């Protein structure tokens, strides 16, 4: 499943959640992330919140990628629990985009800035996770987010 996931010690199988590409399901995705992250007790609460927000942003983008799609559009969120990292991917088949061509905002110190209500999702993702990658897939995008954390405690 790509470079990040073949990282040493990441065990199969992952946990996976597939939701319809509709805004009312993004809360379920956050709950999924928060619940799984909470089982890594060595991850500070603040970083759980960071990961939750990053995944939420990626999921919102994935849902929006289907703007003109039919009723069977879905977003798939996959969670790998590695020994030293958490890896989450968010996949859509909404047509894809080139992350390097996303326009940048004017600086916040200019009045121009207020013209833009959008375009904050990817900057937020980049600021919050330790690694991220926006991969093109045949029909859409897979965003991979990585959060490093201390070694996993053994579960009972």
């Amino acid at each position, binding site marked *: 499943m790509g470079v990040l996931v073949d990282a040493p010690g990441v065990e199969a199988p992952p946990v996976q959640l597939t939701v319809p590409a509709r*805004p*009312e399901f*993004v*809360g379920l995705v*956050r709950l999924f992330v928060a619940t799984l992250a909470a089982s890594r007790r060595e991850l500070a609460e*603040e970083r759980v*919140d960071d990961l*939750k*927000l990053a995944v*939420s*942003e990626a999921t*919102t983008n994935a*849902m*929006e990628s289907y703007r003109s799609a039919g009723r069977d559009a879905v977003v798939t969120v996959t969670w790998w629990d590695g020994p030293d990292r958490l890896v989450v991917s968010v996949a859509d088949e909404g047509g894809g985009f080139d992350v390097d061509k996303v326009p940048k905002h004017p600086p*916040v*110190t*200019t*009045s121009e*800035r*207020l*013209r*833009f*209500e*959008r375009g*904050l*999702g990817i*900057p*937020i993702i980049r*600021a*919050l996770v330790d690694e991220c990658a926006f991969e093109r897939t045949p029909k859409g995008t897979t965003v991979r987010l990585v959060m490093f954390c201390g070694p996993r405690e053994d579960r009972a």
Partner: protein
Amino acid sequence: MELGLEVSEQAGWTVVRVAGEVDTYAAPQLRERLVELVTEGQTRLVVDLRGVDFLDSTGLGVLVGALKRARGHDGDLAVACAQERIRKVFEITRLDRVFPMGATVEAAIEAATSRPDPGEAEPLDGATGGR
């Protein structure tokens, strides 16, 4: 989840107390309310985010849009926010330099009124009253 939205008055400002998760699902409710208020002429707004558990880029976008609208009518939009978690989202995006902000409604109003010219469309440098 529905958003909690309560409107009240304080020191000549219209305070909108928001509760819940401001995400892509709920943000339209907030946008609608803020647009309504500005349309009614309530252009000096404080959005009280202290009861908000989650705020994402969609929520920020709504606030930016409402700020623009309020300033366009010689008003302003200040943000009250006490939780580190929510404040962080403003800091990451540097929007803490755009919005007058405070940890309480009073402090948010204070930040807005101590700005060099609250009616002006933008802060001209990083040192705004909101910091």
